[in-house]
C-alpha cells in the first residue's frame, strides 16, 4: 500500500482531523480590525466538497485566513495547511499568487514535481496527490478559494 500511504501521509490525516483556522468569525464584510475582506465559496461538483474561505488583507499583506467546509481528508487538510502557511508567513498578495501558481503546477505535474517544504511548509506533504489525477481538484479547492478571496478583498 505504499502509493496510498504516500497520498495519505500522517500529516495529512492529522490536519484533516484537527483542521487549523477552521470557523468563520461572524464579522461579515466589515472587519472589526483593519484591512479589507474577501470571501470565496468553492465547490467540487463531483463529490460535493465545499469550502468557504475568508481572507483579510491589510495593505498588500494577507493578515488572516479563516475557512469552513466539508469534504474528503485531502480537501480539508489542504485548507488547513494553507491557512497555517498564510498565518506563519505573512504573505503579500503577489507572493500568495506566486505560491498558488507553483502549487497548481506541482499538483498537475502527474508526479513529476515535488513541493519544497521550505516554501510550502506542511502543504508540501500534498505533493503525493499529483499522482492521483482525480484528487487534484480536492487539494486545489482551498487554494482556488484563496486566489479568489484575495482578488475580491
Amino acid at each position: 500500500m505504499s502509493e496510498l500511504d504516500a497520498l495519505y501521509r500522517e500529516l495529512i490525516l492529522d490536519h484533516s482531523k484537527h483542521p487549523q483556522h477552521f470557523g468563520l468569525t461572524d464579522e461579515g464584510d466589515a472587519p472589526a480590525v483593519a484591512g479589507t475582506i474577501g470571501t470565496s465559496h468553492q465547490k467540487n461538483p463531483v463529490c460535493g466538497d465545499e469550502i468557504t474561505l475568508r481572507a483579510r488583507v491589510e495593505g498588500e499583506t494577507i493578515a488572516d485566513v479563516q475557512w469552513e467546509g466539508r469534504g474528503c481528508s485531502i480537501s480539508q487538510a489542504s485548507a488547513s495547511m494553507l491557512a497555517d502557511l498564510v498565518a506563519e508567513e505573512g504573505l503579500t498578495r503577489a507572493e500568495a499568487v506566486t505560491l498558488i501558481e507553483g502549487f497548481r503546477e506541482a499538483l498537475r505535474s502527474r508526479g513529476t514535481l515535488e513541493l519544497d517544504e521550505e516554501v510550502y511548509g506542511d502543504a508540501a506533504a500534498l505533493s503525493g496527490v499529483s499522482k492521483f489525477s482525480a484528487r487534484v481538484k480536492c487539494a486545489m479547492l482551498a487554494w482556488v478559494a484563496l486566489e479568489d478571496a484575495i482578488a475580491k478583498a
Partner: protein
Amino acid sequence: MTSAPASPPTAAAVTALDVAAIAADFPILAEQVNGHRLAYLDSAATSQKPLVVLDAERDFLTHANAAVHRGAHTLAAEATELFEDARATVAAFVGAQPEQLVWTSGATMGLNLVAYSIGNAGLVRPGDEIVTTAIEHHANLIPWQELAARTGAVLRHIPARDDGTLDMDAAASLIGERTRIVAFTHVSNVLGIVNPVADLIALAQQVGAITVMDACQSAPHLPLDLPALGVDLAVFSGHKMLGPYGVGGLYGRTPVLESLPPFLTGGSMITTVTLDRAEYLPPPQRFEAGTQPVGPAIGLAAAVRYLDGVGLSNIHAHESMLAERMHAGLVDIPGIRLLGDAEGVERVGLWSFDVDGVHAHDAGQYLDALGIAVRVGHHCAAPLHTRYGVTASVRASAALYTSTDDVDRLIDAVAGIRPYFGV
C-alpha cells in the same frame, strides 16, 4: 396503496451463471490495477463490454460501413439492413416492435427528447403538474424542472421512506386531476430497489397522465416487457447494458409516439422540405434527426443478444444473490450505514453506503489501492443524498460478470477502511 411483496426469482427456475466463463469474454476484467486483479464494482456507472460487442462494430466498420437510409449502393443497402435488424433486436429485448424503438445517444438524451417533445406539443400548461420522485437520477429530474419552468407547470415529488422505498400512499394523493406526466425510475442507481412501477403506472392511468420510466438500471439486470407493463415511454443507455457509448433507446407505445412532435430536426426525418417549412415522417424516424449512431447501434444489438444468451432471469438471480451477500457482509461492519436498507424487496446487485468518519472519496481511494473499483460521490442523485443526510456515498454495483470473490474482496476491504484512517 400497497403492492404485492416482490418475489425474488426462485432457484428452480434459473440456471446458475458460469461467471468465470462470462468474465473471460470481458478482457478488461483480467487487468491488474495497483497490483491486484481488477474487481470492477462500478457497473451502474458504465458496464464493461464483451468482445462480441467490439467485434460486431468492427466487422461492420471494416466490411459494410456506409450511410444508412440514404443510398442505393450495395454497401448502403447492407448497412441499412444491419441497422434496422439492430433496431428489431433491441426492440424485441424489451418486448417491443421495431417501430416502437427510437435510437437516442443515451438515456439523458431520451429523457430530454421526451420532455422537450411534450413541451413542444403544448401538452403542459401553467398550473399543470408533473410528478417525479425524490430518488431520481438528475437525468430524470432536471429536464422536468426545466419543462416546468418553461411552461409554468408545478413539479411534485413522491417522497421516499427511510428504508428507501417510495411512499406509495403519498404517490396516490400526489397523482391527481392536474397531473400530466408521471416520471419515475424503475430501479434507483443509488438504492438498487426495484420500484413498484406497475402501481405507479396504474395511478397515472387513472388520471390520464403520461408515464415515463427510466429503465437504465433495470434493462441490464432483469427481464423487461415494456408493452406488458403498459408504460407509455421508457429509456435506457447502451453503455450501461454491455453496449457501446453513444447509443441508447427510447421505447414508446405507438399512439403516444404518434402523438408527439419532433424534438431534434434535420435530415432523414422529413417527407417534404421547402425553404420555409418541413413535414415529418412517422415514428420512429420522426425522432431520429441526422446520422444515427449506426456502429454503436449494431454493437448494442450484439450486447442484448449476449444478455439474452445468458438469460435475464439467470442474471437477475445471480445479482440478487450478490446483493444479499454484499448486504450480509457489510451490515455488520462497524460504522457502515447502508442506504435504502428495506427488507423483502426485489433488488439489483447494488449497495451504496456511508462510512462513519471517512469521506466517501477517501474510502473509494482506499478500495482502489486494493484493485476494487467503486463509485463515490452523489452518483448524480444529489437530492436523494440530501434526503438521507449525506453529501456523498460509496457505491458498489454488480453485473452478470461479477463474482462472489469480487464481493468478498469488497467486504474484506471495507472492514479495513476506518482502521486505516484511524477512526
